[in-house]
């Protein structure tokens, strides 16, 4: 599904990613952990195609296709989804209208007609129920005045609507209380299948109790310094990151 080879990326000549190698196969869940400033969010943004970051070396491939010259919207059309750490507020555009636009733009890119209103309504009802989202919430302006938890739940709602092949969840657990965390994680689990993949970026092991990863990677200084199974997350929770920093320094 996703193959990252020797990826180096900079912003304003400052190198943030320094040679990342990562392969994610369909059906897998990968967790990326690491201390603040290690490059986790940058990696997520680079995969999603943010233009601010310059890829100086290496490549990102989706299903065998190099994404280098691909715009963020084209990546979305190909099935990449990024759940933002800080979703942006868009006053005056309701959640529903926003999703209509997003879905129909993706359909247009695939040469399909707009989704009939009836189907759209059904889809919205089904996905909002799954994430226990109040219908009134959907007519509010996108992210405007949403609590931290509402914003994150709304991100997963968008993911559910768009049904991506590769979903990257960037600190989706931050700002969530335990009930909201459970709802969000259940949503992600329901969307998981043998045909799609999930990358979970998080500081804490907590979320991984609910979304159980097949692989855990630790990012430090723009490199993956350790990879392992789900037990690695528990080890990190217990020991913190310092031992790894020391280990890599040696």
């Amino acid at each position, binding site marked *: 599904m996703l193959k990252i080879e020797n990826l180096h990326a900079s912003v304003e000549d400052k190198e943030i990613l320094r040679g990342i190698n990562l392969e994610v196969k369909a059906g897998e869940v990968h967790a990326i952990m690491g201390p603040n400033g290690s490059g986790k969010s940058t990696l997520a*943004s680079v995969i*999603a*195609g*943010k*233009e*601010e970051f310059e890829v100086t070396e290496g490549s990102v491939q989706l299903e065998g296709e190099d994404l280098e010259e691909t*715009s*963020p*919207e084209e*990546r*979305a*059309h190909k099935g*990449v*989804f*990024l759940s*933002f750490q*800080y*979703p*942006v507020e*868009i*006053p*005056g*555009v309701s959640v529903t*209208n*926003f999703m*209509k*636009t*997003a*879905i*129909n*733009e*993706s359909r247009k*890119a695939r040469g399909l007609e*707009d989704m009939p209103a009836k189907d759209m309504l059904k889809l919205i009802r089904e996905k909002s129920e799954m994430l226990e989202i109040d219908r009134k919430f959907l007519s509010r302006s996108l992210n405007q005045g949403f609590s931290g938890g509402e914003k994150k739940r709304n991100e997963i709602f*968008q993911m559910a609507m*768009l049904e991506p092949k590769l979903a990257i969840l960037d600190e989706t657990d931050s700002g969530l209380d335990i009930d909201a965390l459970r709802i969000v994680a259940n949503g992600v689990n329901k969307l998981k299948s043998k045909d799609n993949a999930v990358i979970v970026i998080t500081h804490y092991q907590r979320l991984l109790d609910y979304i159980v990863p097949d692989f855990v990677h630790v990012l430090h200084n723009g490199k993956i310094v350790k990879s392992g199974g789900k037990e690695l997350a528990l080890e990190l929770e217990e020991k913190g990151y310092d031992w790894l920093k020391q280990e890599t320094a040696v």
Partner: protein
Amino acid sequence: MDLKDKLISSFMAFENNVDIEHSVHDVRTEAMKNFELKGFPTKKEEAWKYTSLNSIQKVDFSIFPREENTLEYKDVKKYFLHEIDSYKIVFVDGIYSSYLSETTHDGVDICLMSAALTKPMYKAVIDVYFNKVASKDESLTTLNTAFSREGAYIYIPKNKMPKKPIEIIHFATGNEASILLQPRNLVIVEENAEVQIIERHQSLTSNEVLTNSVTEIFAAKSAIVDYYKIQNDAATASLIDNTYVDQKDKSLVKVHTFSFGGKLTRNNLNFYQNGEYIDSTMKGVTILGDKQHVDHHTLVHHIQPNCESHQDYKSIYGDSSTGVFNGKIIVDKIAQKTNAFQQNNNILVSDKATINSKPQLEIFADDVKCSHGCTIGQLDEDALFYLQSRGIPKKEARALLMYAFANNVLESVRIPELKTRINRLIAKKLGVNLGFDL
């Protein structure tokens, strides 16, 4: 002959066609003297620093149309808010079109200035209100006063509200190579009465049009006035809009200005708060491209205590367009407990576009809340990336963000069909189909 000289000589011809014995004509004559003295404003004047009328004065405008022109409703229907029923006061090349209009005298007067200025039954009202709030020394206002003869006359008596909104539309047919129009409107809303007005100027060809309009609005105690100005004219049409609002106790007046087109647009919007617990609201959405120019000059004069004013102007400038926002707030010494808010946010979407934004606060009272904020920026790159990452192409994403930026100004539009219309105009102006009705 330059335009000023032409206007002076035209005034004599004009006098042959109006009743010079009427008291209104003394007002006209005084106004003409002022214009003769001052002429057109130049960039040397602070208030006209960023807006030049030089090129306009080189045009050989017809001051009066040579003949009456007619239009078919089906050809101009789209300029009306035809989704709803409305009263209509329509002018074609400055001349009233009874065919396109729908006026009334049923409990309220929604009719013509020419009637109000000549018929004895209106004289008492005209003597009290005509030219009472409009400036007597601003040169373009006095130019309009000198030639005042036609426009909309709206009188809403105490406790009344017309059954439907009023549309005032001025069409220019292009039958003259270039034409100067000077409509004069008078709106009087008595105690506890209410009115909604939509005003539009529309040139139908690429012939040059200059409109120098004056509107006087009087809102008595507890009156409510909603005034919407739609400025989406042809690229060869220029508008100088001079609006003066006199408010009494507890009245509520809102003026929305939507500037989406025209060659040069100057809005002089002046509010005078002659009472307590008054609320004055000025909102504007400006979306310009090409070489268009808009200059918003607002004035709120807080004369009495316990009043509020709210200004919110949002503008998007593309191509080589230029904009000006000059917001003046005066708070007199006795106007304690004044709340005056002013906000002007601008987005420049092209390197060649410019905006000059200037808040001007003169506060002489000590117990007031005044705030002003001005921003000039580009679209937020993070927000753009967010939308793109959901599959929305960059062009549409930009449009959506620009729409979102301008949107909160629309929230106070109280005619839903008008709001929808403005939404569509914005989407069209931004050049995209957003895939849903905003």
